[in-house]
């Protein structure tokens, strides 16, 4: 079947999935009972009447299914409701403000990680059991076992506090601090702030990807068609970069796709440690404050983007491996 029909089928299929997700997103608010009661538990002096007033203001006094439908309809119109914190600002506005810092951080890290992991993974697989390979696999396993936030903290302590080379928090620093780091303009400032968080994210992502590429490459290199290619006298370059690579690249595509989908929601840990003004950091705050409209809005955005990314990944598979198009 053609690529077009494959895509159309998958898109159609996404609709019930989205519906299910929206329902679950909404229900989280009621997971442990009435949300307003939970939020105001810390305030013993509040009266039920006041609670009810809050409910009415946020439209939470209506029956739950009605609430859900109102919420859903509004979402489709682009209205994500008003935040419980941040002075009741519209959720959509807030998300828009925090969206790009997160995307910037993530995109750079993911692309760096994928770009680096392919050559490293290939080199490692080609020279299996060599010193290089063992070093790479150990560092990779280390990276996968490391708490990302801890790495962030260590880097801050080392490079910011002790060596004073790089700023420790935020996306931009106040201009009067620039001379401390030898910064002369806003671009450099932003760049300086990017280095540490990107390093953390890239390292972890890289570790994971290298393992994937290497494992897949190893398996592919054992296959008969690679032996046949070598037996035909093909140069090693052709064998590895044409014949082996295309067959081993699928997990990297998967990872790329999933990571891109998670770009918007990813890295709450790193953003927290570096106080990066992105969605991840703000979500943590929202979760702490139980700011439900914000929570649900961010969740929906993230989930939709993940679904879209999954779709793109599936389409790429069909493009790369012609056998899949037959299904």
């Amino acid at each position: 079947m053609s690529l077009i029909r494959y895509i159309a089928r998958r898109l159609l299929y996404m609709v019930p999935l989205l519906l299910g997700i929206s329902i679950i997103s909404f229900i989280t608010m009621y997971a442990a009972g009435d949300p307003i009661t939970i939020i105001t538990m810390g305030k013993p002096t509040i009266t039920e009447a006041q609670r009810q007033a809050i409910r009415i203001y946020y439209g939470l006094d209506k029956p739950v299914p009605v609430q859900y439908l109102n919420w859903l309809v509004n979402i489709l119109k682009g209205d994500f409701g008003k935040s419980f914190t941040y002075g009741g600002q519209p959720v959509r506005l807030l998300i828009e403000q925090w969206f790009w810092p997160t995307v910037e951080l993530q995109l750079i890290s993911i692309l760096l990680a994928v770009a680096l992991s392919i050559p490293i993974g290939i080199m490692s697989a080609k020279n299996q059991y060599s010193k290089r390979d063992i070093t790479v696999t150990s560092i990779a396993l280390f990276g996968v076992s490391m708490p990302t936030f801890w790495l962030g903290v260590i880097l801050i302590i080392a490079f910011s506090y002790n060596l004073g080379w790089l700023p420790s928090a935020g996306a931009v620093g106040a201009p009067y601090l620039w001379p401390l780091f030898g910064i002369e303009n806003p671009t450099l400032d932003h760049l300086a702030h990017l280095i540490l968080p990107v390093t953390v994210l890239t390292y972890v992502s890289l570790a994971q990807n290298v393992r994937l590429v290497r494992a897949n490459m190893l398996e592919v290199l054992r296959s008969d068609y690679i032996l046949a290619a070598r037996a035909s006298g093909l140069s090693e370059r052709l064998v590895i970069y044409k014949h082996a690579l295309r067959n081993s690249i699928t997990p990297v595509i998967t990872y790329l796709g999933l990571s891109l989908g998670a770009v918007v929601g990813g890295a709450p840990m790193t953003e927290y440690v570096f106080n990066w003004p992105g969605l991840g950091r703000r979500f943590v705050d929202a979760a702490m404050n139980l700011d439900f409209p914000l929570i649900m809005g961010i969740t929906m955005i993230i989930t939709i983007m993940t679904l879209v990314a999954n779709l793109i990944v599936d389409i790429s598979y069909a493009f790369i491996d012609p056998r899949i198009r037959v299904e």
Partner: protein
Amino acid sequence: MTKQEKTKAETASRRSASQWAVAWRRFKRNRAGVAGLIMVSALVFIAIFHNLLALYPARPDPKAFTPFYKGDTAKPPSANYPFGTSAIGTDVFSDVIHGSVYAIYVGVLVTVITMGLAIVVGAIAGYFGKWVDNILMRITEIFLVFPSLLLILVFVRIFSISAGGGSWQFLGITVPPGLTIVIFILGVFNWASNARMVRGEFLRVREMEFVQAEKALGASNWRIIFRHVLPNILSSIIVVATLTIAYAILLEAAVSFLGFGDPNTITWGQILQENFSEMRTVWWAEFFPGLAILFSVFGFNLLGDGLSDALNPRLRE
């Protein structure tokens, strides 16, 4: 001796060819896996003897704050305090030692819940197939698409507040409520990917001939699942379970670090949270607990990789 008896005797005298014996021999040859086993055993040892190994008792025992009373708050590592003291006046070394108990508690319990759910769902989906499989896989997909860390935080927060304080009794053991809530939520949000793996394995084994043979002999479905399919899948389950323990420890640390953990249970992540704002001056209190996490997770990952190699041999050269 008849020819038959001779062959039997020879077979017996050859090294035991049972699946597990072979796997164990393979495992022993894998140095990384053995290293992992040693690390995990060290962790367990520390957890069992934590009261003997630590310098000061665990919180909430007031003696844990002895450094504070001695005016030794926020001091760097020294002979008295191998890992230094924290911002609130506890001995970091003791905190880390005591935290090992929580690490294992969290790791194991989360894995039990996750694997339990994953096996049940995966088995039903993989074995019965068709529409049952379809529905279950859609549900699994929904769980996989959600940003799990974020939702975990929300749910932990909701339930922590509504459950309040106090202590819980479970089979006569007092369990820390806050931490147990975290554990349950971690368990519930993690089953999806493991369920997929279990289902895949079920599909693979279901097509094997001996299952068809059993069916032809009239064995009931449950009997087939439990007595025939599951034992074949056991090795994959063991490997995934080990890796899940590693992942669970990491997740709990993340949740506690962000401040969503139970302030009364001093897990390693909790220590990191307590000293985060002071990390500039009390860096050792951030360094060592993190190192403990790294050590434990690394150990379980090595062990899991080693087990995977030993139990599922591919043409390893």
